[in-house]
């Protein structure tokens, strides 16, 4: 029995590692995701919302993955940028100040504002590493949440902001979950494309060198100051984008939407998927955001079961579901070495 499962997984791996097989798989998944909202089944609205929400977390995961997975900067306050993006849109497009600027204008502004905040956070922590960096960023996330709670004149405090405008696209008001489902899907694809290009560029290589050894990176000529700030800015930009979409979708936001659990969840989904791996972020989001909803039928035992699955997974696959090539080499170097010289990292593959 075990052997049969092993041979099946072998076969699946084989298919997925050929380019045609991989594209066919991606195409099939994409097609399924595209038609879900069009199908007619019980609880359709529920699933559209859950998967849309998962997509939002994929966007956040891709952003934080740049900071944590690629550049190696442990950021525990990522929710701050999500909040900045969300509040930027909510303040500029609602009855609160009676300003109603178009979503498509505010979206880039909200993302840029968050990116700018990322640089502001980055400057004081340039010389920090590891745990110290984690503590400062954790504090930053809390500071932003406290600010939106207490700046009542600006943000309406814990009463939150309600009646946030829906976006319009060619005269169509985007307000149902299905609309946002498709919008988020498009942004997920854009974010995957952009982060993938960054990863494989000179910028990505600079991040990786910095992550591995900061001094050695400087010695080969990497401007670590610039690339650290760039990582914070790119991550924050994507977080801000996610925040603006979130506030437009939900129509109302409250400081509680931006508590530390958001940061922790996003970090966890990256770890579960496999640090630094883009497909890992996608799988991790489904595992961490969708799965708890699937388990909802077990009601009270849901989180227990979920925690159990996480423990099993960390024992069985410490490197995550779809590890980036490098982490796999790191954690299973011995097995690979015993299997003989491997050419998994090709000469151009950096």
């Amino acid at each position, binding site marked *: 029995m075990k052997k049969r499962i092993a041979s099946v997984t072998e076969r699946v791996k084989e298919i997925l590692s050929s380019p045609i097989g991989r594209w066919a798989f991606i195409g099939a998944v994409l097609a399924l995701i595209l038609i879900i909202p069009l199908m007619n089944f019980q609880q359709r609205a529920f699933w559209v919302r859950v998967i849309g929400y998962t997509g939002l977390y994929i966007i956040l995961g891709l952003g934080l993955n740049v900071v944590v997975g690629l550049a190696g900067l442990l950021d525990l306050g990522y929710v701050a940028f999500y909040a900045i993006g969300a509040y930027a849109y909510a303040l500029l497009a609602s009855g609160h100040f009676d300003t109603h600027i178009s979503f498509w204008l505010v979206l880039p502004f909200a993302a840029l504002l968050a990116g700018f905040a990322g640089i502001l956070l980055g400057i004081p922590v340039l010389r920090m590493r590891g745990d110290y960096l984690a503590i400062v960023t954790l504090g930053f996330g809390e500071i932003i949440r406290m600010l939106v709670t207490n700046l009542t004149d600006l943000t309406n405090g814990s009463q939150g902001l309600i009646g946030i405008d829906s976006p319009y696209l060619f005269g169509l008001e985007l307000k149902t979950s299905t609309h946002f489902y498709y919008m988020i899907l498009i942004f997920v694809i854009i974010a995957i494309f952009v982060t993938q290009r960054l990863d494989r560029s000179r910028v990505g*290589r*600079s991040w*990786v*060198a910095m992550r*591995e*050894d900061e*001094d*050695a*990176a*400087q*010695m*080969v*000529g*990497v*401007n*670590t100051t610039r690339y650290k700030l760039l990582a914070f800015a790119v991550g924050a930009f994507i977080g801000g984008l996610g925040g603006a979409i979130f506030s437009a979708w939900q129509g109302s936001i409250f400081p509680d939407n931006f508590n530390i659990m958001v940061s922790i969840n996003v970090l966890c989904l990256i770890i579960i998927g496999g640090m630094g791996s883009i497909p890992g972020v996608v799988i991790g989001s489904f595992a961490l955001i969708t799965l708890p909803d699937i388990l909802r039928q077990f009601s009270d035992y849901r989180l227990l079961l979920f925690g159990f699955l996480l423990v099993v997974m960390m024992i069985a696959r410490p490197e995550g579901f779809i590890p980036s090539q*490098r*982490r796999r*080499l*790191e954690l299973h*170097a011995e097995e690979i*070495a015993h299997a003989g*010289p*491997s*050419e*998994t*990292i*090709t*000469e151009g*593959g*950096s």
Partner: protein
Amino acid sequence: MPLLEIQNVHAYYGNIQALKGISLHVDQGEIVTLIGANGAGKTTTLRVISCLLKPRQGSVLLDGQDLSEFKAHQVVNQGVAMVPEGRGVFSKLSVMENLELGAYSRSDKAEIQEDLERVFEIFPRLRERRSQVGGTLSGGEQQMLSTARALMARPSLLVMDEPSMGLAPVLIESVFESLIEINKQGTTILLVEQNAHMALQVATRGYVLQTGEIVLSDSVEGLRKNAMVQKAYLGIE
């Protein structure tokens, strides 16, 4: 004009003075060694050369140009490549990726390829292991990788911090042989070592550093005959 000239450098860590006005020079084509015990200021000297530490007084000139205007990441562009203490290989990247990062500041693809061939000729072991991750190499291989990575920057000056550290004697010998080969191909070398015995065999000249001061400077023959060096660094009574 010397390739590297350090003039009266004073350097501090906070209030603690690590270098008390050292001066030395390295001429084009030489192998110069800087020997000294633990805490003498060897690594500090290298941190000053690589602009990781700014001297409070004095200057470092490369080809007559003051290096203090540059940031640490720009030094390699000026032609100084470092092989840091403890090797500093990117342990999760493959040998090939390590070498590519060595050529980070260059864009001349054809010449990079040429240099890759060159370092593989000097260190054939690295060619065999090119897809292996750095962290799984043996100590000697990591030293080769670190040296090869520095060479990928095509430096005019190669600065090495204790390449013999933690290596078996037979490996130390092969590391030093490769240094001679690298030097023959035209790269000037500043070799910082505790292992005076080996260093004095490959270098042409040497300096002795003690508690932040240069106490001796001579040709290696002169240093080998010096009573103080024999007693303190070569273990000859």
